[in-house]
């Protein structure tokens, strides 16, 4: 019974699929935008690969770019001031840095909304009180939180770096419907080609304490490195622990193999 019934059911599915094949057009709708989107450019960072480390000087510069440029619109909700000790700051420096921020609080006497000096246990304060305010201030586009941005975008760090350095004039052959509208800016690394964020970086926009020349490319690299750290502060530790575990297991596996051969030595199989 199973076989004849199965045969009929199978025939039903196959007929439906054959009809589907003949009714589906074989040619795709042409999508012009695809041909203008560029693949992200590769950026090499110290935290890449199988022997990563944090380039602390670069991370510090990147944080400066975030603080002086990005933080005007973008939050960094998941990062606490205490975390930046990872970037090579002392506890005292962290305290001073935190004090430089005003974080939301409540007036202890009146209960009214107020602000107070930041503490190391506080997180970076958000530039807008809520999404509505963020939307209203940015031409209806909410600037995304940057804490996880290098993990939350296809292409990761390469995408962020390419986007920051990729602003350009629209090419002459760009069809009219793909031209940036008002309040939009052309960037071929952005999947929709036009995004609400204006070119954020210009040469010399920040002054680095270590004397590094603040070119757009340099700042983009630095802030990308910083955002790789914010997305996964445990990245370097993860790979280092990984090697220790891997080599331990390698030895175990070799021993287990020898033991297996040893136990089976007398058994033909």
């Amino acid at each position, binding site marked *: 019974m199973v076989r004849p019934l199965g045969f009929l059911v199978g025939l039903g599915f196959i007929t439906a699929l054959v009809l589907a094949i003949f009714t589906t057009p074989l040619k795709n709708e042409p999508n012009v935008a695809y041909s203008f989107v560029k693949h992200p450019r590769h950026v090499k960072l110290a935290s890449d690969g199988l022997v990563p480390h944090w380039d602390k000087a670069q991370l510090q510069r990147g944080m400066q770019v975030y603080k002086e440029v990005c933080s005007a619109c973008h939050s960094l909700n998941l990062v*606490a001031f*205490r975390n930046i000790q990872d970037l090579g700051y002392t506890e005292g420096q962290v305290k001073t840095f935190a004090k430089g921020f005003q974080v939301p609080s409540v007036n202890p006497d009146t209960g009214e909304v107020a602000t107070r000096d930041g503490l190391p*246990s506080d997180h970076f304060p958000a530039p807008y009180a809520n999404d509505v305010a963020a939307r209203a201030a940015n031409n209806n586009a909410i600037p995304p939180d940057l804490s996880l941005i290098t993990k939350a975008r296809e292409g990761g760090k390469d995408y962020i770096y390419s986007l920051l350095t990729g602003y350009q004039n629209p090419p002459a052959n760009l069809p009219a419907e793909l031209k940036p509208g008002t309040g939009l800016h052309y960037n071929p690394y952005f999947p929709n080609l036009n995004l609400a964020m204006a070119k954020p970086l210009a040469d010399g926009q920040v002054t680095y304490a270590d004397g590094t020349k603040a070119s757009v490319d340099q700042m983009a690299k630095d802030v990308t490195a910083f955002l790789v750290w914010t997305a996964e502060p445990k990245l370097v530790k993860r790979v280092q622990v990984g090697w220790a575990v891997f080599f331990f297991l390698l030895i175990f596996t070799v021993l287990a193999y020898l*033991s297996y051969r040893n136990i089976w*030595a007398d*058994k*033909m199989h």
Partner: protein
Amino acid sequence: MASESELNAGIEDGVRRRDFINIAAVSFAGVGAVAVVLPLVNQMNPSADVLALSTTEIDISAIQPGQAIKTSWRKQPVFVRNLVEKEIAEAKAVPLSDLRDPQTIDERTKPGKENWLITLGVCTHLGCVPLGAAEGENKGDFGGYFCPCHGSHYDTAARIRKGPAPTNLVVPPYEFTSDTVVTIG
């Protein structure tokens, strides 16, 4: 048909060669298992964000002599008490040999600030919050704190005098950042 000896060739008198290999492999597995247990146990320790909430600043300017306030540090209650001369004298009058957990009041306060008694509000018996910090509460037989759970009495220096608690109320690490502000932790 094959005989058993044909299939099980290569072994004499049943003694295995290189048994140490098996022992080594099993030992490695054991060490690995223990190594994996460590992070699985350690994850239950306080996490980084909990540890970061370790300092609290308290403004003590509004506490009148004889009064006390209840505040919190690491989510535990903290008693800040402005002692009057009489209370300090009472505490000093007790001979150390009478105490279950001998400590002088000077050891429990900061020099020059003997009137400020800052302790955790956690009974050292089983962790209840003693009474006596707020106006009108039972201060116990010795004018300090009284734990209602099992009847521990603390004196004006928050030292255990009667009842089941084994030790004095704990003095947390703190310092005066100014005359009116105390930082605990």
